[in-house]
């Protein structure tokens, strides 16, 4: 469980990148953080995994204050997958790249081998294991970066813009992976601009703007609220827009649907049309 109490963070001592953030994320929750550029999403995530230390307030992970732990110690609990996988890839083979984190956290050689085999199977990296990660495509490199964090088996996983520049197939792959992780009771936090992705898959959405949390709630409420989304420079998901347009037509006047994901939307619409 992550608890943030009144955290404030400033890079330059003048402007607050995080301004009085209070937040609680339970175990096994799936949370999305959305917001415009510079809203403080990544700063918040970096505070949670200890890369940045907030000047005010405190952060508890499973009831323990993280200020006394080093980043490496926190890394055992919290996995952080960065936006740009090229910021971390440096080894000669994919296998070594994945092993790097495991070696840092001082796992035994047998444990390292076991985890490596597991993650390679899970992320379908078998055919790449002995080639240089620099030869891979962007999407594949992202998968290697993800594997190198997932093999540490963290309780909490933070993904920074995982859908950026990914095609539909990779996105679906990611969703499947997240579903599997959630079944195991892992907490997942996704930082994203992709409102469609959030509306489709993420149950709880936190909206940030100018270093503050301006909304925090289930997607059924957040994705319908034009006022909040506009404040963080995000447009309504397409299905929420469709609801609005349909409502403006005479035949669909009483159509009310809070969902913005395809599955639920379809059922709501079907129910409505049957009633008609």
């Amino acid at each position, binding site marked *: 469980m992550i608890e943030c109490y009144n955290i404030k963070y400033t890079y330059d001592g003048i402007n607050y990148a995080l301004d009085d953030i209070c937040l609680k994320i339970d175990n096994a929750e799936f949370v999305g953080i959305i917001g415009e550029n510079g809203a403080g999403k990544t700063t918040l995530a970096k505070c949670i995994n200890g890369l940045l230390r907030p000047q005010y307030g405190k952060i508890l992970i499973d009831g323990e204050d993280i200020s006394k732990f080093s980043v490496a110690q926190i890394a055992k609990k919290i996995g952080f997958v960065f936006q740009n996988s090229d910021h971390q890839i440096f080894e000669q083979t994919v296998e070594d790249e994945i092993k*790097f984190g495991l070696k840092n*956290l001082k796992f035994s050689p047998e444990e390292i081998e076991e985890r490596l085999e597991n993650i390679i199977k899970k992320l379908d990296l078998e055919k790449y294991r002995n080639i240089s990660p620099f030869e891979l495509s962007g999407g594949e490199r992202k998968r290697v970066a993800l594997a190198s964090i997932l093999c540490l088996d963290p309780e909490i996983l933070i993904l920074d813009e995982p859908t950026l520049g990914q095609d539909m197939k990779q996105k679906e792959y990611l969703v499947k992976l997240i579903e599997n992780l959630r079944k195991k009771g892992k907490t997942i936090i996704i930082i994203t601009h992709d409102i469609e992705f959030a509306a489709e898959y993420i149950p709880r959405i936190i909206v940030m703007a100018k270093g503050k949390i301006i909304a925090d709630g289930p997607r059924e409420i957040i994705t319908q609220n034009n006022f909040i989304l506009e404040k963080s420079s995000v447009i309504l998901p397409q299905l929420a827009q469709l609801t609005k347009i349909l409502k403006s037509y005479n035949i669909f006047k009483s159509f009310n649907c809070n969902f913005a994901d395809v599955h639920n939307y379809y059922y709501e619409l079907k129910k409505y049309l049957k009633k008609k």
Partner: protein
Amino acid sequence: MSYTSASLLDLFKFRRKNTPIHKLDPRTKLYYAITISILSLIFSDIIPLGIIFLSIIPLFIIAKSFKFLLKTLQGLFFLVLIILIIDTLFISLSIAISMSLRLFCLISSFSLFFLTTHLDDFSQALIQMHFPYSFAFALSLSVRFIPTLGLETKMIMDAQMSRGLELQKGNLIKRIKKFIPIIIPMIVLSIRRALLIAESLEARGFGIEKKRTYLYQLKLTWKDYLITFILTIILSLSIYFVYFYGLPPILTTKLPI
């Protein structure tokens, strides 16, 4: 690691100020820096080097950048300490002091140049000195990317630390080894970016015309001519005295040790 090197780089960063030195032509300032460098290399005694160093100080004051001179001296502290110790042990204290003064003169003259010259003016000066345009352009481009590189290093360090890399722990050799995961991504990213920049430059028609024209041309004023003239005289007199005539004994006085 970045703190000391970053603050030293800071001493070579242009600050916009309205002073006579800032207004001088970059070529004059470059000529000044080169003259001081040559002078500090041809003299090897304490008194002449001391005079050269003292002559630089008022220029920093006129350029309203005196605190940067102090910072330069501060930044060179460890290097100077090493020079002083090694030279005193193996040669003599006089040599040690003159070597340190020489280093101060070399660094601070170029520091003055970069503190008071905008990069665009510098590259324009190079072009007007008949350097190839691509050379001047590459130079200004590379300086422009230094802060970007710093930011990127920070991001790479963050990424590796999140994978359990502990940069502060271990002995010296271990710590040096720990920089491999940071240096390799940095090199790879820089090469990738260089290729990208080259492509985007070509896409925007870079190098389409062999002969370029410029909106702003640098012009030398009477001040520039005067300073260049004085510098040339000082330089030629110094060379004459050092190599053909010999310096008066007062100037070559050495410390007893």
